[in-house]
């Protein structure tokens, strides 16, 4: 593999599964040190096999806790001597009509999908500044660009994450930090699987998902990771405040 990320130190939230995990593998292969943050202790444990042979730190914690996010950031900075990249891949879905959405549902979605990345970015910024610059890539969703039915909370949280990222791109540019957003469509992950399985007719639900995308299929996590790595690399040095949809042709953003 290339060593395009040699000497880079990347903090990845939601690192143990799906898109986050695909990123971790790619970053490691490209020579980076990676700080993995996830609330899924079991999945993190599976990553620990890799951590012996490569430059990984593992932190179990929740995006909804400022304290746990900050503790994980401190641990990563101590291990690597700093941080110069962030990927926020942690996120949760909610397929529910608004009338069935209670305050607790709503707050939970926003706490993870919007407040979570905000906490990680806020905790990382002093270190990115200290490193003399860096990159942040937040994983939003095609649903943050173009709505999906029965996903009011999810779509709103992902749209919020985009505007958060763009506003941050403006202030972070002053110290050489680029902030971009990747908006995936449906991705073959546990998150998608569990949403499909909850539908009354899972097969029909899956076909309805496929029909949304011009390419007629859902993405592999690695196809999303490819865009995340590009936006984290020096190849995209004039790109900031951008939302790049990697969605097989749904949003046409």
């Amino acid at each position, binding site marked *: 593999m*290339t060593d*395009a990320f040699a000497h880079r130190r990347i903090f990845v939230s939601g690192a143990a599964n799906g898109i986050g995990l695909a990123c971790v593998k790619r970053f490691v292969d*490209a020579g980076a040190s990676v700080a993995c943050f996830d609330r899924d202790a079991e999945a993190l444990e599976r990553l620990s096999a890799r951590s012996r042979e490569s430059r990984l730190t593992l932190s179990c914690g929740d995006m909804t806790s400022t304290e746990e996010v900050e503790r994980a950031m401190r641990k990563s900075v101590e291990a690597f001597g700093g941080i110069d990249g962030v990927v926020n891949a942690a996120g949760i879905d909610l397929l529910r009509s608004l009338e069935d959405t209670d305050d607790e549902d709503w707050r939970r979605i926003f706490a993870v999908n919007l407040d979570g990345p905000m906490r990680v970015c806020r905790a990382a910024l002093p270190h990115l500044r200290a490193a003399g610059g860096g990159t942040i890539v937040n994983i939003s969703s095609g649903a943050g660009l173009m709505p999906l039915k029965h996903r009011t909370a999810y779509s709103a949280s992902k749209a919020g994450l985009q505007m958060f990222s*763009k506003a941050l*791109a*403006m202030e972070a*540019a*002053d110290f050489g930090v*680029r902030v971009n957003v990747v908006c995936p*469509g449906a991705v073959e992950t546990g998150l998608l699987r569990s949403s499909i399985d909850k539908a009354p007719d899972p097969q029909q639900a899956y076909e309805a998902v496929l029909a949304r995308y*011009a*390419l*007629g299929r859902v*993405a592999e996590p690695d*196809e*999303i990771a*490819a*865009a995340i*790595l*590009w936006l984290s*690399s*020096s*190849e*995209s*040095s*004039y*790109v*900031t*405040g*951008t*939302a*790049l*949809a*990697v*969605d*097989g*042709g749904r*949003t*046409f*953003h």
Partner: protein
Amino acid sequence: MDKPEGRFEGKVVMITGAGSGIGAGCASRFLSEGARVAIIDREEDGLAQLTSGFPADRVYAVSGDCTDESVVTGFHQSATEKFRAVDILINNVGQSARERASEFHESQEDVWRFVLEVSLLATMRLSRLVVPQMRERGGRILNMSSDAAFAGDAGLVDYATAKMGIIGFTRSLARELAPFGVTVNAVAPGAIRTRAHDRVPAAVIDRIRQQTPVGFVGEPSDVAAAICFLASDEARFITGQTLLVDGGRWMI
């Protein structure tokens, strides 16, 4: 991902307006990564610079005007005879005709026609020539928009109109070609250091720089890096998109 060697080994890439600026930046990048490149530009000097560094089986250059349909048809025919069918088409050619720009109420229809021909219709014509074979073999089409399409450009109404037209073209063709393994995307650069850019008054450049969060004007290589990413296998799930490469100047 710093210029992986040979990423485009064996690919045939066609680039319009490749004699200078962004088009030349794309051509050098594709050549350095192993592609065979067919290029066209009105001006021979820039083409000669590109062809001099590579053997004739790697680069094929034609000097001609992309607003002339017969020139474009001839270029496509001779390039595919020399190499083979096009894998990656970079529709880069375009002009703002800034030297003839005026406020809209005083604008001339012949200028509109020129700008639309070179910045929109040339893209549509060459795409129509490559699409039949791409429908059989797959491929990538990259179109050059501009952040002027989003931001608007007082005094350059025709140019911004053409560049927004590029986006509609990109989205529609992406839908049409998705079943055939062809992705179609656009890149919308902001202020990039090119010859056209060098003709912009210094006060305007200063204003642009102030409006650009990263605080500097981009290089053609910045746009070429985005084009090469979207043209690569890495971007196979991206289609119908417009990627801004503008230092954060216009955050849509």
